């Protein structure tokens, strides 16, 4: 610490009560998670059974993956309300390509692409939809809330249009067409279910990108002060466009996972998922005004929401009460966030006064 500057400031003398408070506040999501786990372990004896943990982790993975994309968006000071609809759209695109293939009436043929290609197409298409939101936000200066609200409707409408509101059932493909294997994504496992590996992989990559690449830095910088970023040479529009594409990409992957797990694509898939994703981000300590937060926090936030939800089910709390409790937890988290911010300001002011 002392080599960092020519004039080292005085060293903090001892750990004070405010330091402890700060530590508790900073680690609040993690503390909340431990608390939730401990409480449910006491009430529901088989809560920590291995099988149960894997089921919960699968549920968490959905929110966590969406939360990862959402974290990038919120770090820039934006919001993406369209993720739930994009999940549905991604599922429907995959369902259509498996069950109906690509019909070319002029040539009188139907192309049934390989499963890998199908997933690729769904991901590219939905990522581009995220890009459209980003383009509208940066090019026409539309508030992210509005642009992605529009995309919420458009994408859901498209998901419904694809099969006239009907489900694509039984997405197993046919061996003679060479498009089998889609359910493997949802059902298969290597020690644990694939979706959990995807979550872990995404989280590691995202955390790395956020912390260690110029792009990640620029995301934080834009949320911290957009004008100053511009003046420091950050191409603000390009970065913002990219974060909405990342969010679209994550939505697409989640859509595929869900369709695969259900072996069916339903057009209403993913409804209200955006709210869970935002809740995970906020619980994880990311500021809705941007510039502050972390991928790790979002993952913990997703676990809090997932464990809370599943735990309440296991304990037998009615689904109506579950909603009430979830809502209270989210609001409480933001209140604590505000308290922390105010405390930090106070501490900063005190330090300034001490320095003279």
């Amino acid at each position, binding site marked *: *610490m002392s*080599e*960092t*500057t*020519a*004039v*080292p*400031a005085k060293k903090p003398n001892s750990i004070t009560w405010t330091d402890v408070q700060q530590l508790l506040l900073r680690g609040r999501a993690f503390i909340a998670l431990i608390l939730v786990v401990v409480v449910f372990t006491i009430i529901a004896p088989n809560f920590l059974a291995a099988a149960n943990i894997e089921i919960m982790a699968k549920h968490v993975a959905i929110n966590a993956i969406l939360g990862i994309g959402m974290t990038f968006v919120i770090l820039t000071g934006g919001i993406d309300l369209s993720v739930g609809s994009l999940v549905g759209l991604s599922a429907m695109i995959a369902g259509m390509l498996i069950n109906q293939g690509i019909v070319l009436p002029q040539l009188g043929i139907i192309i049934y692409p390989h499963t890998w290609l199908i997933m690729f197409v769904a991901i590219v298409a939905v990522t581009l939809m995220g890009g459209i939101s980003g383009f509208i936000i940066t090019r026409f200066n539309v508030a992210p809330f509005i642009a992605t609200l529009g995309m919420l409707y458009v994408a859901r409408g498209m998901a419904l249009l694809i099969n006239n509101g009907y489900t694509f059932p039984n997405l197993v493909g046919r061996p003679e067409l060479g498009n089998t294997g889609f359910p493997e994504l949802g059902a298969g496992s290597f020690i644990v279910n694939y979706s959990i590996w995807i979550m872990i992989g995404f989280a590691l990559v995202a955390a790395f990108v956020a912390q*260690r*690449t*110029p*792009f990640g*830095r*620029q995301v*934080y*910088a834009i949320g*911290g*002060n957009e*004008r*100053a*970023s*511009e*003046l*420091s*040479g*950050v*191409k603000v529009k390009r970065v913002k466009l990219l974060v909405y594409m990342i969010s679209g990409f994550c939505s697409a992957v989640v859509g595929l996972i869900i369709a695969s797990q259900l072996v069916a694509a339903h057009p209403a898939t993913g409804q209200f998922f955006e709210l869970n994703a935002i809740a995970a981000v906020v619980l994880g300590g990311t500021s809705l005004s941007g*510039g*502050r937060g972390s991928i790790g926090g979002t993952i913990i936030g997703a676990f809090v929401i997932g464990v809370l939800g599943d735990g309440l089910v296991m304990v037998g709390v009615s689904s109506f009460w579950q909603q009430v409790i979830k809502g209270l937890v989210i609001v409480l988290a933001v209140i604590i966030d505000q308290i922390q911010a105010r405390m930090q300001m106070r501490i*900063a002011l005190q*330090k*300034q006064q001490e*320095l003279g």
Partner: protein
Amino acid sequence: MDGTNILEFVEISKGFPGVQALDRVSFAVRRGEVHAIVGENGAGKSTLMKIIAGLYQPDGGEIHLDGKPVVLKDAHRALGLGIAMVPQELNLIPEMSVAENILLGMEPHNSLGVVDRNRQLQRAGETLASLGLEGVNLGQRVKGLSVAQQQMLQIARALAFQCNVLIMDEPTASLSEREQIALFERLRMLHEKGTTILYISHRMEEVFDISDRITVLRDGKFVGTLPREEATQDEVVRMMIGSTMADYLHGRSARLEMRRAVLEVRDLGRQGHFHEISFDLHQGEILGFAGLVGAGRTELLGSIFGALPRDTGDVRVNGQPATIHHPADAIKAGLGYVPEERKRLGIFPELSVLTNTTIPFLRKLQRMTVIDRRAERQSGEQLARRLRVQTPSLEQRIVKLSGGNQQKVILSRWLGSGADILILDEPTRGIDINAKAEIHALIAELADEGKSIIMISSEIQELLAICDRILVMRNGAIVSEVSSATATQEDILRLAMFGSEATLQPANPKI
């Protein structure tokens, strides 16, 4: 004008962190007069006006209204006592109609509390008529009006509150000449009706045109009040500067034999902000830009850096034409920019000192696509040491540092990025004296190393002390070029306020 005092200031003081904005200011304003208040940037004029309007509370002293001490605890109270201010930044509500804006906060209503539309329109119409503004569409939304019209509206709003004292803070800053004339006509009308007007301006012609008496402030202190008939422009300028400053020490003389031009600016223009700007910046030179607030300096230099738009003109860097549409282009061409408003445009308050330092040159610190953290830290440490940034660690959030240290961090960005041309907009504003001296020394050092520097400052002494040449801007044009070795503060202030009589053309960049 019956000669009695409507307002009296007794020993008014007001301090902000780091500055004593007003220091025991005492003077009186007579009933019904137009009283101009002049002074250099930072002399305390606006602070004083905000105190009268109830927006700031003085730390000490008393205000007497009609001979009785009053406490103006907020703007509402001041309005209630008949004191209204037309602020520099207009604060009308763009989505509301003209009539609604005039009567905002005092809407006529019936016994049920519902706004009485007819009476609203009628009273708004009467108010405008008293300003000689008949035939204004009362239902029109304010956002469609010109700045001058909005200003009239703001005055109308003040009148609707039956004000006796009207404060105008730099009202002509954004008006065309024709609009100015119209404004003055209205002010004379009000004057004849007995309204007392406090008028703040930089522009001497205006002040001498309209006011009965002139009060000069300097560095937060009262210098004197002169009746207009007895005052001359020279005298007022001298009072603004202070006689002791006549021969300020020139730190850097024009020691430079002319070296090659690293930045050539030709015919730059932007509608309503600056026009026909041409100048050269030479290697190792410190070029100052003097002028009043609103002269177009910030807009001009921001546009060279690609941060603000421009309509016409070319920029060459090191002899090559440079297409700069975005600050990223400018940085690539070797430019660096320290903006005027450090908090709003400079720092990332919640991010660490290190992140704040390296943000513009992350590309230089990456291996593959990953930031090389060791290289980043080394670079950050080196820069912090060189600029003597005082911080407990590089992980400290920058918002916790003092203003001077924040400014050093912003400067260090451009040393790290390897910029050869630095544009500094008010680099020492609002920072303590020690940091200021350090930054001055650093600027000179960088120039000696061969970097070229453009610097805006509102402190003419500062420009004289560290610049080689100074360009003076007025109303969006360069009116003169002076050498800091021969010019005096008075010369520059006079050029900034009146322009040069001889020529209004841009200075010839080729000497």
